[in-house]
């Protein structure tokens, strides 16, 4: 039951993009079309889930076991960079079309704050193994949710008549702000 709570919490209540404000770069960069947004979301969810697993193992069997808390950030980023490298090679081999759609944004998943945040949260809150995996997966689903909603809105905005000063980054950020306000409605859903 607690896993369900963790899952829902990670997807809507504490949505990584709209509540914690991580993963904003790809959120703004890849949300122009629903297709690419969905692909990005799936790739990120995959990387996040595996990151949760690997960093949990490293945290408990290396960092805590040997008393090396100062190696936390370095080890996490090495894990994430390698993971993204593998995912990139895998996608290139299995689906060249998808590889081309995601383009430059695939390697950029490495610098996606959200992935590192998954690793940090698992350590900060001292989650158990399964809870950590659920958290990572839920965070990815939440990210996908946010980015797909954003893409849907932006596709509509493409054909709207926006005043000149608001075009581009401005209207995107305003939309993101309104989305974040809307998601505040989920606050308190998973309290004691």
């Amino acid at each position, binding site marked *: 039951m607690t896993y369900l709570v963790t899952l829902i919490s990670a997807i809507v209540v504490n949505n990584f993009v709209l509540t914690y404000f991580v993963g904003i770069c790809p959120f703004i960069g890849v949300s122009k079309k629903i297709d690419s947004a969905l692909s990005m979301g799936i790739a990120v969810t995959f990387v996040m889930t595996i990151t949760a697993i690997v960093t949990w193992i490293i945290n408990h069997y290396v960092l805590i076991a040997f008393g090396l*808390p100062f190696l936390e950030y370095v080890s996490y980023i090495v894990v994430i960079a390698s993971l993204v490298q593998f995912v990139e090679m895998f996608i290139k081999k299995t689906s060249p079309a998808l590889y081309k759609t995601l383009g430059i944004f695939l390697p950029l998943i490495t610098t996606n704050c959200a992935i590192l945040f998954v690793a940090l949260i698992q350590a900060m809150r001292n989650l158990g193994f399964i809870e950590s995996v659920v958290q990572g997966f839920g965070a990815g689903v939440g990210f996908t949710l946010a980015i797909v909603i954003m893409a849907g809105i932006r596709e509509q905005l493409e054909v709207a008549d926006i005043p000149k000063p608001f075009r581009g980054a401005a209207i995107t950020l305003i939309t993101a702000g309104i989305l974040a306000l809307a998601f505040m409605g989920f606050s308190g859903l998973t309290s004691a």
Partner: protein
Amino acid sequence: MRKMIIVLTAVMVLSGLVLAATYTSLSPRIEANRVAALNASLASIFADQVADVADLEFEELDTDGPTVYRGSAGDGALLGYAVRVQTQGYGGTITMLAGVAPDLETILGIEVVEQIETPGLGGNITNESFKQQFEGLSTREPIEYVKNIEPSKADNEIQAISGATITTKAIVNGTNSTLDRAIEIIRRQVQ
């Protein structure tokens, strides 16, 4: 290929050494900061019991459950125990300390250590007026909260924060369950 591995390994080894050195030199200070902050929170629970707060001494008990601190005065007299409570509030996790008297029957008070509740609403749990309500309550029955009516100390009641029922509920439920477990553990240890 070989150069790649050498460079990468060299960088990582260097990074590890630099960080180990920095950590070793700074960690005593970081630990001192942490202890000072912890002692400040613990002191506020026992502040009424001593003339000089500097006399207080704390010792963490070895438990397999909630974290419990034993508070004593400078002369060794037992002042009570402080239990760490963690509960899910409205905005996030609330971390607080609940103090109990040496007889394990009376609550000395609470101190909120960390919270990210809404400022002005749930955030008011850090106000003296809210925290004081817990002083003198009993551990023999669960604490309850009431809304819109005067709380009765005899019935172990406190007044909920207006507009922040979820936060109040989190604190009350968390304190009840954690104190129950902690008191059982303390009783076993004292015997």
